[in-house]
């Protein structure tokens, strides 16, 4: 409430000027007295017969003491007081708006510099608290993945990644979701809230009852307060001490799109003010604990990411209705402005997280396939498919002769060290020749040429790789490897099934077919330093390399004898 005192009014230079003029113009003397009886202008004379009030909105600011002609002065001052007050109110309003603009400028600068989801949410909530009163609040995000919290996602490794299953998670709210970093699952939160404030399990039932789950499958998922204050009934904030938001773990929120006040804000994308929450028939679990709330959606052009809510629980603290927080349209407007900034920043943070994830996938993938191939897979060229299908490829098997006997002579740690050194050199060679490392089995390497991306001269590439591998070992920088790792290599080519083979939980990108077995058998009979190839490899590359026919051999597990050639290098 803007106040105006007589003293302040009379301090105005233009008003002082007018009064001085009037004092000279009218016939009788006058003086101006405030409500405490202090003279603010003129000299109080006992002879002044009348007292005319200076009024502002029915309130008396003081008096003009004088004769009949002083009445006009009192009227004039009343009018000037009214004008001054209006101007002050306007100025106060301008100042408030200006503070808000400053805040929005400030926050947009701060949050656009933030790429971490958690930090963005905390920052937004902290800023919101500065301008909107309340003892509780949260930034709630809609998660399509169960338990995919800001923190747990970043901590995950590639093998744990599950695809985002839109709508396939109906009913997940009733089951405790595994959350990382010691976060608490849904059921525990539900219990702790129930202990503190005995409630009917309305919201819980609504969430688990399939009848009540909206048909719109894209709207399923979980809600999580990634930043919040005053909600954690188990750890109430210390009075007068602002809790560090960053120390508060994310917390699941029991809410359903379209149901409850928060759920409706989420579904409709329109913010709301509810100043008597417990009297609102939509009130559900998520709104328990609030007496009044103001809630704005975190909305981007495409979708509603979640919401930001601020509220108070005054009555729980024994406050009477006159001191309870009551939100205004101005609060909502401000929160909406804040929320739209926040939504943009949150979306940025989510995109950044996605990019990080892709980068991690990429770096993991690059351990198996050459970098350029990873890029090709990521860019999803049409001719690269990871689904099993028939492909013409050349398969390379390489194995260290008498590896087990070497192992017996050395400490296991030492052997692993040598093996890693050896593998990294071999994988480099395979990648340089655009081969794909299919797997390591003990000391054995299996590589594919022509999968997942087609390779016109896969036989040639494979032989060049094999020769480079043998030469590398013969001139290996570590003497022990040079002296002890003698490898036999077997190559075969033909049409096999290649692709991701396995179960949805675990699959290997691998090749299956007769030629795979042939390559494996050839490797098994190759002596150290030897490269043995099947007839089809020989046929494709006879003009490029020199070969020595090894005649026809019957390989283990094979009914028919096959022709074997040794590459002369």
């Amino acid at each position: 409430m803007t106040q105006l005192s007589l003293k302040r009014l009379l301090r105005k230079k233009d008003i002082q000027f007018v009064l001085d003029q009037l004092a000279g113009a009218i016939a009788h003397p006058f003086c101006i007295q405030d409500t405490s009886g202090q003279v603010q202008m003129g000299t109080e004379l006992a002879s002044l017969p009348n007292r005319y009030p200076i009024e502002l909105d029915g309130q008396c600011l003081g008096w003009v003491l004088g004769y009949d002609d002083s009445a006009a002065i009192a009227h004039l001052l009343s009018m000037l007081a009214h004008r001054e007050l209006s101007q002050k109110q306007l100025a106060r309003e301008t100042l408030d708006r200006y503070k808000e603009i400053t805040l929005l400028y400030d926050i947009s600068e701060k949050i656009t510099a933030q790429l971490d989801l958690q930090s963005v949410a905390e920052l937004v909530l902290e800023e919101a608290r500065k301008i909107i009163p309340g003892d509780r609040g949260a930034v709630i995000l809609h998660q399509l993945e169960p338990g995919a919290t800001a923190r747990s996602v970043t901590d995950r490794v590639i093998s744990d990644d599950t695809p985002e299953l839109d709508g396939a998670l109906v009913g997940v709210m009733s089951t405790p979701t595994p959350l990382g970093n010691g976060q608490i699952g849904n059921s525990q939160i539900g219990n702790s809230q129930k202990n503190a404030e005995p409630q009917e399990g309305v919201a819980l039932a609504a969430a688990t009852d399939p009848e009540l789950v909206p048909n719109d499958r894209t709207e399923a998922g979980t809600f999580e307060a990634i930043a919040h204050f005053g909600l954690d009934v188990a750890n109430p904030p210390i009075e007068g001490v602002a809790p560090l938001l960053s120390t508060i773990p994310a917390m699941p929120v029991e809410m359903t799109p379209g149901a409850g006040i928060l759920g409706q804000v989420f579904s409709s994308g329109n913010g709301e003010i509810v100043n008597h929450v417990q009297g609102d028939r939509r009130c559900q679990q998520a709104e328990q604990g609030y007496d009044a709330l103001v809630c704005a959606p975190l909305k981007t052009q495409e979708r509603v990411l979640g919401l930001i809510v601020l509220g108070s629980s005054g009555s729980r603290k024994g406050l009477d209705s006159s001191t309870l927080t009551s939100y205004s349209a101005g609060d909502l407007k401000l929160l909406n402005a804040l929320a739209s900034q926040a939504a943009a920043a949150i979306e940025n943070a989510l995109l950044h997280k996605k990019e990080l994830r892709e980068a991690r996938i990429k770096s993991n993938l690059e351990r198996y396939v050459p970098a350029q191939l990873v890029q090709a897979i990521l860019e999803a060229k049409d001719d690269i498919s990871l689904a099993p299908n028939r492909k013409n490829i050349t398969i390379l098997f390489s194995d260290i002769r008498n590896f087990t006997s070497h192992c017996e002579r050395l400490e296991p740690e030492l052997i692993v060290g040598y093996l890693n050194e050896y593998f990294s050199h071999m994988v480099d060679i395979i990648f340089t020749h655009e081969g794909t490392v299919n797997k390591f089995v003990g000391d054995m390497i299996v590589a594919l040429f022509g999968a997942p991306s087609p390779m016109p001269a896969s036989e040639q590439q494979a032989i060049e790789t094999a020769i480079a591998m043998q030469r590398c070992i013969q001139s290996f920088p570590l003497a022990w490897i040079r002296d002890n790792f003698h490898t036999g290599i077997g190559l075969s080519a033909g049409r096999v099934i290649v692709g991701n083979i396995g179960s949805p939980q675990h699959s290997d990108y691998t090749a299956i077919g007769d030629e795979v077995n042939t390559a494996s058998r050839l490797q098994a009979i190759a002596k150290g330093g030897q490269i043995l190839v099947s007839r089809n490899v020989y046929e494709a590359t006879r003009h490029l390399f020199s070969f020595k026919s090894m005649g026809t051999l019957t390989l283990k597990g094979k009914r028919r004898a096959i022709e074997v050639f040794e590459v002369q290098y």
Partner: protein
Amino acid sequence: MAKKILIVDDEPHIRLLIEQALEDLEDQDVELMTATNGREALQLIQDELPQLVFLDVMMPHMNGFEVCSVVKHDLNLPDIYIIMLTAKGQEFDKKKGQEVGADLYMTKPFDPDELVEKAIATLGLDAI
């Protein structure tokens, strides 16, 4: 002796809101004055000798830098504390500010509370 603060800005709403922000200082016998352009400001500075001036940089006729330079150098009034106000997006020319002898600069939209703090600190007043 009353302490004086001069607010110089060609935009009425900025003058109004600085006045409003500083209004409570009037209870500590601080007089607030306003000027709408550089020339008027210079006149008031010479006549009233305010202790503190909030001076907008971008003004018609005579800009803030010119006013500041005249006050600090030509009129030889280095003790008048001058806070330059610069609009967001217009990079404040710090070198020029230093040359003309400005004591501080604030970017609009400034935080009104910060403005009051600065005034209190400069004039050695009690916190509100």
